[in-house]
């Protein structure tokens, strides 16, 4: 199982890289949509915090999220 997981991780990571010819995908002046609050990784921040607490209390798993990246890319 561990080996399968390692393969999965590597595949996902590589597919992320392979999916685009270059990672420098969007020009700094084309980030209007990415700057919108609905496009932020934490756009459902409050809802997620409340839900995650419930699900963690009622299920056996937790966590996984983080919020760096995306957005308007300013400064």
């Amino acid at each position, binding site marked *: 199982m561990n080996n399968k997981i390692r393969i999965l991780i590597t595949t996902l990571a590589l597919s992320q890289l392979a999916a685009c010819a270059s990672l420098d995908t969007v020009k700094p002046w084309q980030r209007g949509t990415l700057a919108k609050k609905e496009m932020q990784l934490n756009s459902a921040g409050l809802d997620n915090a409340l839900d*995650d607490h419930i699900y963690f209390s009622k299920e056996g798993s937790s966590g996984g*999220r983080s919020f760096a990246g995306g957005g308007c890319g300013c400064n």
Partner: protein
Amino acid sequence: MQLSKTGSISAALAAATCTLLSANAIAADSNTNSQASSLIEGWQFNSALLYYGETDRVKAAEAILSARGDFGDDKFLNLNLVLDSLTGASATGAVAQPGAQTFTRPSGAGSYTTAAGATPLDDTFRDTRVQLDASWEQPLTSNYRGTVGGHFSKEYDYLSLGINGNISRDFNHKNTTLSVGTALSHDSINPEGGIPSAFTPMLFRSNFASEGAYQQAFDGSRRTDSDTKTTAELLFGVTQVLNPNWLMQLNYSIAKADGYLSDPFKVLSVVNSNGITQQNLYEQRPDSRTKQSLYWQNKWHLSGSYLDLSYRYMWDDWSLNSHTADARWRFPVAGNWYIEPHARYYTQDEAEFYQPFLSEGMPLPAFASADYRIGQMDAYTLGAKVGTVLDGGHDFAVRLEYYQQNPNNPGVELPGALKDLELFGDVKAVMLQVSYSF
């Protein structure tokens, strides 16, 4: 929030790991709402009230107030206050029986009864919890950004203290972001009635000649008054902008918890070959747990709508592997209104020491728990959120969700009377939330 008293420890773990970056997340919810007029110059506030209710079981109310202060040049202070209150009954892990049953309350004082055929639920638990989070984020040298934060959570018998930090670095004109985060927390539990020794039987006052004799036996069955747990977590993330309308994130995290990981209020029933309970023993879980997860999230802007799809695979050394798939799709409707349906699917394997009951005559295992929340189960959530932007740029939304858990028998043979009883009943809950930003 303890959605069952047994959740004390696990909930605190949740709270600690969730706040790895969630203090920022909660407060940042509407941070890009540029046109909103705010109560205090430079500060954005977000608030929500949540009601959670299971049919015939736990009911909880939670209130959150979060604030995000802009100190200029991308420096922010995030503050979070949570109050929650819990009442109602939760499953103890004991099995249903063809006849009525009596159980002793966790404190050792008093007892409660369960009707014939019903799942034993302990309704002793009423608790209120306060949580405070704070975090500071700012740019470090160019393209680097750092966050540092703290967490405090207190309820009657539980205290959780934590710190967290995160560094992220942008590449490719901020199209790619790598981040590393860490969280450490220390929890202490001091339950009423103390912490029972592993697999000691639940005692009944009626079996003792005097109050004194009973109290002595009860105290003798307690290992200690209080215990602690520490958790350390590391998270690595990659965020990539794929096109002007598509953002993707992939995270790997690893967490290690050490200390008291059992639930002092949960028991296992020892049943004979006819399925009749002979006694109930307090559970015992291992004193360490290492969890790892892979989390993948996509956000799309599709013709004015916003789709958020995520998947998490979690695996740990308790063999409790889980898959979580979550989808939210926000559609604009008339004027400033939107509707956002939400669906979530969750499935987990049972922990390797999970047993719905113990069999009389069999040797006791090193670890065992009948807590259905670490058993095999599927869970479904279906809901929707409706919201708008009011005059002055304030967000208002109402969210209604239906959550159902379907525990499963992981292939255990049910002896005698247990065959005809519902041991793996579904748990159904409703969540209603109102939120407002100002």
